């Protein structure tokens, strides 16, 4: 069978002159690669902003009775930090990776709807700008926490900040929703010939699942936020108990979205890990089908566990019990993934390039986040742990030790493909170790703080002794992480002009994005091979070797 099928490079569409300038070409682009890069760069800017808020929070909490940032300003910082990291950093940067990689990985020339893709990006930018401008609103930015529980957010936050928060999250939801549709259509219809569902890269499986999760979860959030908006501004009483409304209804709406949202942020990160580990262990992924199916399994059960965020509201015991069992069930497909990654390392030939360090760091840290989740799933134990720093530690082990470590791994891994230059390995390793050590210093002691009784979202405390020691360690860790991020920025600047040029496939990887040049041409591929396995480039190398051409 002819493995290489000739596909003619398409005729380049007409583009007006004014759209071809250096900046204008980026502003008007509908190329999935450029949109992907825009997503990633914008997310990194917001990552800096959210990180600065985190440093302010940690400075305030470094020692007892600090006065750096108190009361209203503190609550604003907490609210916008959480909202930023979730809605403006992790979700969109993963959308950026998806945008850049999905068409390349499945052998397509672009996303199914390039203009819709651009719309999705620009809506995201708009939502982000609104969120940050809301600091200038009367009464400051929103201050009811990223969860914005009613009736605090609906009846007791008179400032405009809360309304702008709703507007921003509404726009960001729309952006994600449109993007998700685009991913589903693209992956369903535009795979290269021969690329069956069991031959698509695991990252594409993850993005496909991520898209379905967004599509199914976001409408509930939008409904909840709309009711909140109407309660605040139109005199409705959806959540007002004085007029027969229910504050608990909001929590159901929020967490029916909110828990799948966690998997929206984690599954593509796991997809990145499933791409990196086999390449640097020189092995195929162990249990491709098990890893793919566990992705779908986690997503499915992700919709059945939202109540574990509400164990303290006094739901009936039978309901709490169900949510506990369902939450524990999720640990099983998650465990399957971890065991398969470990098995992929087994008898490998492991190189410790920076992407691999981040991937191994992910396994080490995500495991801790997963295990602390079991304590939180057991609802009587949760009654002691919820709303404390134990939960703060848990979500950061999942979303920072998990998602962000995977994202950095992905950046080091695909940077050469995106920009044509390798990032510096020495700075990369410094980045990793500083971040790894800083992260553990910052967040491990928070488990203990939670057990000692430190509530989250408090702006100060007066206890000395253990409280002070753990808090100070945590703050030192936060600043160590900030230094790590500066090292990363230095790496980008340093290699921008002088970095080693990347060849098509610098890591000897097996997936299709490495088949084209680094960076790829606007049409992605001159020719697209017929796909006969999940590792097309390995097939290609083997064939070339057989023909004596390699």
């Amino acid at each position, binding site marked *: 069978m002819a493995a290489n099928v000739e596909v003619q490079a398409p005729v380049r569409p007409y583009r007006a002159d004014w759209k071809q300038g250096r900046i204008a070409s980026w502003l008007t682009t509908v190329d999935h690669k450029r949109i992907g890069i825009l997503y990633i760069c914008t997310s990194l800017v917001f990552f800096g902003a959210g990180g600065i808020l985190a440093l302010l929070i940690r400075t305030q909490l470094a020692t007892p009775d600090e006065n750096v940032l108190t*009361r209203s300003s503190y*609550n604003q910082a907490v609210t916008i930090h959480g909202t930023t990291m979730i809605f403006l950093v992790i979700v969109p940067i993963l959308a950026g990776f998806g945008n850049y990689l999905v068409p390349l990985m499945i052998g397509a020339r672009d996303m199914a709807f390039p203009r819709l893709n651009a719309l999705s990006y620009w809506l995201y930018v708009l939502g982000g700008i609104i969120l940050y401008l809301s600091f200038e609103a009367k009464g400051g930015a929103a201050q009811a*926490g990223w969860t914005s529980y009613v*009736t*605090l957010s609906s009846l*007791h936050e008179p400032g405009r900040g809360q309304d702008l928060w709703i507007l921003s999250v509404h726009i960001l939801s729309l952006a994600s929703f449109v993007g998700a549709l685009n991913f589903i259509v693209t992956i369903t219809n535009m795979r290269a010939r021969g690329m069956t569902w069991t031959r698509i890269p695991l990252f594409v499986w993850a993005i496909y699942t991520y898209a379905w999760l967004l599509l199914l979860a976001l409408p509930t959030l939008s409904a909840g936020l709309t009711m909140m908006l109407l309660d605040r501004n139109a005199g409705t009483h959806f959540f007002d108990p*004085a007029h027969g409304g229910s*504050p608990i209804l909001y929590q159901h709406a929020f967490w029916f979205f909110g828990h799948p949202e966690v998997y929206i942020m984690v599954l593509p990160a796991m997809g990145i890990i499933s791409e990196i580990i086999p390449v640097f*262990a*020189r*092995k195929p992924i*162990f*249990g*491709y089908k*098990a890893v793919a199916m566990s992705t779908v399994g986690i997503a499915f059960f992700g919709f059945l566990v939202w109540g574990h965020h509400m164990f*303290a509201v*006094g739901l009936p015991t039978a309901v709490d*019990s169900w949510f*506990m069992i369902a939450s*524990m069930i999720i640990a*099983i497909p998650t465990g399957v993934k*971890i*065991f*398969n990654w*470990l098995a992929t*390392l*087994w*008898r490998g*030939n*492991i*190189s*410790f390039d920076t992407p691999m360090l981040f991937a*191994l760091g992910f396994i*080490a840290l995500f*495991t801790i986040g997963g*295990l602390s989740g*079991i304590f939180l799933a057991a*609802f*009587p134990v949760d009654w*002691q742990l*919820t*709303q404390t720093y134990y939960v703060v530690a848990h979500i950061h082990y999942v979303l920072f030790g998990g998602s962000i470590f995977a994202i950095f791994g992905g950046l080091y891994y695909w940077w050469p493909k995106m920009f044509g230059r390798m990032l510096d*390995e*020495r700075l990369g390793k410094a980045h990793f170790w500083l971040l790894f*050590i800083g992260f*553990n*210093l910052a967040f*491990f*002691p928070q488990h*203990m703080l939670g*057990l*000692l*009784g430190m*509530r989250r*979202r*408090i702006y100060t405390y007066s206890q000395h*002794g*253990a409280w002070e*020691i*753990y808090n100070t360690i945590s703050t030192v860790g936060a600043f160590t992480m900030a230094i790590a991020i500066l090292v990363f920025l230095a790496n980008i600047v340093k290699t921008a002009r002088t970095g080693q040029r990347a060849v098509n496939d610098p890591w000897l990887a097996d997936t299709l994005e490495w088949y084209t040049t680094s960076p790829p041409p606007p049409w992605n591929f001159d020719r697209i091979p017929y796909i006969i396995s999940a590792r097309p480039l390995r097939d290609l190398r083997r064939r070339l070797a057989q023909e004596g051409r390699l």
Partner: protein
Amino acid sequence: MPRGVRRKLLGLALVGGATLLITSVALAGNGGVAPQPAASPGASSIRESYWFIMVFTGIVFFGVEGALIAFIIRYRRGKRPRNQDGLQIHGSTRLEIIWTVVPVIILAVIGGFVFFKLPHIADAPSASAAEETTIAVEGRQFYWMFHYPNGAVSVGTMFAPADDVVHEDVFSPVTDVLHSWWVPQLAGKIDAIPGRTNHTWFKAPVGVYAAVCGDLCGIQHTMMAATVHVVPRAQYEAFIKERAANPESLALGKEEFDHVCSVCHKLDSAYVGPALGQNPLLTHAKDLTTVLRQGVGKMPAVGSDWTDAQINALVAYTKTLVKNGGNG
């Protein structure tokens, strides 16, 4: 990076991290490895569940992290060429089944233990009427108020009989926000939700236990706290009897001022709200009543559901403040 350096770095990080951790735990005097020491059967069953889960998750933790580190060291590239293949193995159905079934068993054991403990946590033991009492716990921005069976009220300080089953009806008025009643040594959190009454319980020996609000409830959430004084039954009875007999007592007024007003106001300087020392409101019963009942500006109606006697108690107390040098 050469292998030696890499190993040293890894070793250094591990040793450094472990040392730091152990030192900090030691310094903290066993602080923060488990929920706080329990003084009530429910809280103590939660602690036991916590330790039970810790044993299993601990085993999994050392297993997974140990395997990770072992594989990293054992299967590192070393002197092998970068492009040399590892073992080309695509999976094993038997292994997949094993590492699906074993976690199922572990989780079933954990879940089973929690359900076994659940009745000791969720359900109060049955007791004769003489050995139990019900206290209503009301969460407000930003204080806790306690209603006793005989109509007595206290603010910021809850009195309860020792060694009796104390049922708590936890709620928040419909005009207020969500709070969460948490006395870590006595029980887990239970939310105080506007328009709804939740239940929890404890049975504790004589002692003083700290309580806080667990749910972000606004600008002074941080300062929303209370203490639970568990005292011998006779002393408890005497207290609520005295309170019911003197509903306008200075003692209640002082509690209200200390736990309601002082959360946001100081006498001599501005805090969250303006200074009170020179404020004519303090001696003006009618205006003070209006402010307490309806709120003013950013100030919530902190006394919207207080009895007239409660308001009179506060007014009586604030008058003494002014008499005792007012601007102090």
